[in-house]
């Protein structure tokens, strides 16, 4: 996935010069300072200064889209008119009709049903990948940030190496060498994707370590682990949630991309990327085979992106998730 790959790199820290350039000047003009100052002087508390919060349309739109996709997917057994693997020789390669709202594929399977069930595969596989990635990444990031010293050094060197390694290629190598399959692809993705979380977590931990509440907890004699879990973790949750939401979209793109290449889901599993690759052979004749699965991926990722960006405004106003 082009976009996923680049985005993956985006969460890498900018090289030192960027930071230098970024800090060289204050951003706000003095006038804005004056206006905001005036606002702040207005005797309004900061919380009240954000007046009746405007509805965050990003979250609402993203949420609605996702709820729809999720609803369709979860209700697949009720909504799908056919079993996703059911082959009907006489009904093969039909365009959209009343009996088959999205048409049928070369084996006479109902694309509508497969799209619905395909969501289960795509979403659950990406969610699992995300969960594992998140756990490993946050744990290692906490460890690196909190322990410091050689532990930090070792983890960060590993991160450096993995960052210098095109992640999609790594996934390809793993899937190629160990045989295709959704699980292997998920593992392969996990092997690379934890890096971004480790980085974000580590930088947030380093930041949090400087802050009063952690210093206080430490002074009070709390054990490092309990500080990490009780004090630091809740503080860094916001940016992580934002990053996770955005990454889920990218994971869906990556996994469906690998399936498209034949490395991921295997038949008869309905999976959007795999369906697209089946549609590829017929795309000149029967566009319906590639339009609908592609549309589903697109809409789902769009929903996740909208939601993630909406959440960023709320949970991560400083943009730590994108900066780390």
């Amino acid at each position, binding site marked *: 996935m082009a976009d996923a790959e680049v985005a993956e790199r985006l969460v890498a820290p900018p090289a030192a010069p960027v930071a230098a350039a970024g800090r060289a000047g204050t951003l706000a003009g003095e006038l804005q300072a004056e206006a905001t100052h005036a606002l702040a002087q207005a005797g309004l508390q900061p919380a009240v200064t954000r007046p009746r919060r405007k509805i965050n349309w990003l979250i609402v739109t993203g949420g609605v889209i996702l709820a729809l996709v999720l609803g369709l997917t979860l209700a697949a057994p009720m909504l799908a008119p056919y079993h996703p693997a059911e082959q009907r020789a006489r009904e*093969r390669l039909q365009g959209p009709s009343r009996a088959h709202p999205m048409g049928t594929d070369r084996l006479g399977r109902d694309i509508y049903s497969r799209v619905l069930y395909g969501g289960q595969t795509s979403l659950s596989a990406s969610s699992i990948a995300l969960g594992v990635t998140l756990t490993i990444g946050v744990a290692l990031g906490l460890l690196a940030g909190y322990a410091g010293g050689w532990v930090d050094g070792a983890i960060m060197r590993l991160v450096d190496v993995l960052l210098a390694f095109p992640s999609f290629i790594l996934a390809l190598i793993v899937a190629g060498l160990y045989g295709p399959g959704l699980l292997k692809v998920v593992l392969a993705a996990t092997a690379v994707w934890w890096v971004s979380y480790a980085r974000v977590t580590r930088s947030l931990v380093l930041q949090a370590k400087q802050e009063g509440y952690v210093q206080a907890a430490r002074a009070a004699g709390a054990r490092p682990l309990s500080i990490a879990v009780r004090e630091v973790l809740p503080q860094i949750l916001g940016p992580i949630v934002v990053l996770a939401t955005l990454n889920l979209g990218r994971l869906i793109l990556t996994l469906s991309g690998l399936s498209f290449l034949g490395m991921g889901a*295997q*038949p008869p599993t309905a999976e959007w990327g795999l369906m697209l690759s089946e549609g590829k052979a017929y795309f000149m004749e029967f566009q319906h085979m590639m339009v609908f699965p592609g549309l589903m991926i697109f809409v789902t990722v769009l929903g996740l992106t909208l939601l993630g960006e909406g959440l960023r405004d709320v949970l991560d106003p400083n943009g730590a998730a994108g900066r780390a």
Partner: protein
Amino acid sequence: MRPGASSRVDAGIGRRALGRAGVGAFGLLAGLGPRLTAAQAEVVEEELRMVTPRTFDGLDPTHGFSASRLRQVGAAEGLLRITRQGGIEPELASSYEMLDPTMWRVELRPDVTFWSGRPVDALAVVESLERARALVPFAATLLAGVQIERIDDRTLHFWSEQPIPSLPTTLAGEWLVIHNAESYGPEVNSFDLAAADLTGPFRITAFEPAVRVFLERNPTYWGVRPRTARIHLDVIPDPDARTLAALSGEAHLVQLVNPASARQIERSRTTRLVPIPADSIVSAYVNPERPQFSDVRVRQALAWAVDREELVALAHDGWSAPVPSWLGNDPNYPEARRVGYTRQDLARAAQLLDEAGWRLTAGSSVRAKDGVPLKFRLLWMLTYRPLAEVLQEQWRRIGADVEVQGSPDVAFLRARRAEGNWDAFLEGWGTFGDPAAVLSRHVGATGDINYGKLVDPVTEELLAGFVDLTDPEDRRQQALRINERHAELVPFIPLTQFLQLNAVSRRLRNYDPHFLPWVYEVHPDLWVSA
């Protein structure tokens, strides 16, 4: 007397009756139409562009599949060749005859030289065949006990202790390419263009392994001067990409396009579809060492459970035909079409499985025996994924849980097989050739395509019986007996005809598909009108 030739005379016609009606018509038109009508005045395009899915392994005919790949593009020849009708005719030889059942005499054409200029004389042929015998194990099997003797510069004797009725078939076989053994050296030397020294209408001028090959008209070719000056061969493994290459007009001859895109090609104004009922069937090979398949009844049940008509319709988009028994696609054996699994019989399959102890339990759709579910993995390669998917569904109906895995790349399957890590896979093989040799390869105890290593005393006995049979009809009957035994034992499950679809530019003249398209494709008369 020429046993091979006589037995295959009508093969072409018989074979065409097999496939769809249109298939044969296409083939004939392709072969005859343009040749008769094309005006000689038409301008010839200098370059013929060809696309093939298969890796072009190398330039040494003793390595990999190089022999057939080289022959296919007109860059190599044998002493004899197989005609379109399935007969045998001389190629580098000028004539051949049986002196007695244990001895054949072969006369060579005069004035034939390798690319290097070395004459193709009896000495060169002996060297070449001996080198093949030393380096290619199957060639060693074929030539077992055969002595090759140089009588004079243009005469050779082949003789053995035992009768060798199938020698012409052997010599015409794709693996015995005549090459300059001196130039290649004692070891396999696949990639050195300088060492390559062969014969044929075209000679290779540039070679990028697995990518492309350039050929030019061979100025010293002994036959008619090729009308095309150059051939550009691209290797494109992805079937959809090959279709695009054909439709865009970039290539004049595209081998093995996806049946899925057949309709698109048929509608094209610049390209036509040429179905070639190749001498090959796709079968599901099962691993008898796996507990699921050790019982013959399970294998039989799986064979009965296949709806081959549906397989043809769904997986091949209709471009194929059902094959009920192993020799059922071979026009030499019309009787074999009535043997074996001529229809789907789910009741019988279920009964066989029940008898074998694989039973359905309440609440489960998967059969089990001693608590172990009937579960296996079916591997696919090339364009066989839909085939695997349909089989998966058909076998699901009798309570088998089939997992499907694969890749268009043949290496995927090779790897699994090399590891011994396979339950079942799909592969296609031809049956053309001397029955004793072909059959022992597939079902003999030491046969290299006997993947499951299923050793059956009855089959062994039948195979051994070939030694005493010199009459072609007797050998045919013996082959049919082995075929029947095969249908009972089911070491692999015959499924469908392997029908090769080629996309051919309408400007390509004299394209005349051979039933062995992976051996004979390019010939001197082939040309593209500008």
